[in-house]
């Protein structure tokens, strides 16, 4: 009887089943067409047709974690966007940065943000940081088919651990691979085409217990080094006043640094490099 009444505009039975607090699982039963992983895939690679985002860097500091990304998206040999944003706040205590097929990645971030908020509202408490990292792994796993057609999405996830044991660092970073593998990183991490160069840079500049300001500088410098050697990563653009997006997550929650703050750091780095070049 309740099945026939579902045709009217009240809640369908799926809505009233008191099972699960996951938004993704709920969409899977109530509106599966809204999920990114459920679509039929093209038979050939479409990597050249879709914009791809590039380098994301995350760095821990004393009391939290930072994440930043450059502003470039590429489509084959073209620069498809100069001002794309690839780092987002996932909720009040965590951030997510994305490299790979931009369209799918942004849809995934949107779904992930709703997933975390949905859980919070239904359960009345936030998910643990490990739980959040695991949920994201599940979404990446669902995208494996698309990844094989050139639409891979590889995120970087970082957050402030509200449950951190006494003495443990509250800022934590998790990296992923296309199969949904999920690993916690030590100190810093990077994904995307310029990640090799960014990591090499951080190897020299990062040490544990950095202050937030020093870590911000190390992060922006790593993005600068990545842009130096990787054609798909954009450097600071003083002409259009486009600078990397940087989020800081600490005991106060996730905040995006203002453009002026990041611009000051980026300009200081450029000035120091120019001075070093003149002396050398």
């Amino acid at each position, binding site marked *: *009887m*309740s099945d026939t*009444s579902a045709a*009217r*505009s*009240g*809640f369908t*039975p799926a*809505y*009233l*089943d*008191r*099972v699960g607090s996951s*938004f993704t699982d*709920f*969409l899977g039963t*109530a*509106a599966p067409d*809204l999920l990114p992983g459920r679509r039929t895939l093209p038979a050939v690679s479409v990597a050249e047709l879709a914009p791809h985002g590039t380098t994301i860097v995350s760095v821990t500091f004393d009391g939290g974690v930072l994440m930043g990304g450059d502003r470039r998206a590429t489509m084959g040999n073209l620069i498809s966007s100069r001002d794309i944003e690839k780092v987002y706040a996932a909720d009040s205590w965590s951030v997510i940065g994305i490299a790979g097929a931009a369209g799918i990645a942004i849809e995934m971030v*949107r*779904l992930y943000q*709703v997933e975390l*908020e*949905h859980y919070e*509202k*239904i359960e*009345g*408490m*936030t998910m*643990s*940081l*490990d*739980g959040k*990292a*695991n949920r994201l*792994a599940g979404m990446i796993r669902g995208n494996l088919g698309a990844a094989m057609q050139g639409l891979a999405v590889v995120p970087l996830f970082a957050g402030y*651990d*509200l*449950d*951190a*044991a*006494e003495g*443990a*660092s509250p800022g*934590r970073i*998790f990296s992923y691979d296309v199969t949904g*593998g*999920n*690993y*916690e*990183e*030590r100190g810093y991490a990077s994904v995307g085409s310029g990640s090799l160069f960014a990591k090499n840079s951080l190897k020299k500049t990062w040490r544990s217990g950095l202050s937030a300001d020093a870590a911000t500088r190390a992060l922006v410098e790593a993005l600068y080094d990545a842009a130096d050697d990787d054609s798909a990563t954009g450097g600071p653009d003083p002409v259009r006043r486009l600078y990397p997006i940087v989020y800081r997550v600490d*005991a*106060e*929650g996730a905040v995006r640094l203002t453009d002026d703050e990041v611009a000051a750091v980026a300009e200081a780095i450029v000035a120091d490099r120019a001075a070093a070049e003149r002396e050398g």
Partner: protein
Amino acid sequence: MTMPYYASAEQVMRDRSEYARKGISRGRSVAVLTYADGVLFIAENPSSTLHKVSELYDRIGFAAVGRYSEFESLRVAGIRLADVRGYSYNRRDVTGRVIANAYAQTLGEVFTQQMKPFEVELCVAEVGDTPESDQLYRLTFDGSIVDEPDFVVMGGQADAVTANLRQHFTHGLGLAEALRVGVQALSAVSPATAANGGGHEQLPAEQIEVAVLDRRRPKRAFRRVVGAALAALLADQPAPEEAAPAEVATGHAPSAPAPGTPPGLGDPAAVDTAGGAEQASVQPGTQDGVGGGTDGDSTTRDQ
């Protein structure tokens, strides 16, 4: 299996109404009031975890009285509807009216088509940019929906509380003042207060659940008022603006970073190694009897 016998539709509806009304009036009251900066929810509720008041969406809140299991599933359905709409359209496209309509349809269907009606009464509240655009929808067990102007009182001795509020409520109260008026009205009928044989002068902080939809908050307007903030408001002291939320109680066991491992597997608090080789050899045969019959099935949905 039940034998159908004749009863007039009028009689059936009357019996169901009476049944639902009795169930609802057995509980404690909830008051939802508008105030200068939004909407204030006050529920007489000794439990700090089984909530009667909840967030539905950015600007929309929910309050309920009656049978917990029934309004809890309606609350979850409302959150699901809001999130599905917000995800497939835009966050701005989620309105209190849409959710209130879905509740009205569902309650109406259950009332007319099932043996036992829902013993619940709900309020869906939405804050706008100005006090004039705030909305309070009251939904009753039979699916009626009313758009109330100033305040809504549901459950318990709702009529007595409403009469009390009519005398004391005015437009544009501050938060502390609105809370005082609301708590005073609930206290007048509560069995926990001295006037009715209880031990308290007025309902104390641990007996009430308070939350606000604050239009000044940027995105999610819903905020619970608990602990020191609630005590200060009740004592009519200037409310300490929330300090840095450094010490947030999350209810999780402590965790430690474990680089190189998938999250959770390196947790020192977890002795379970997720089926690692050593563990399996120590404890053979644990596969049996794990997880048997714990899944709910869909029949539990019906009464």
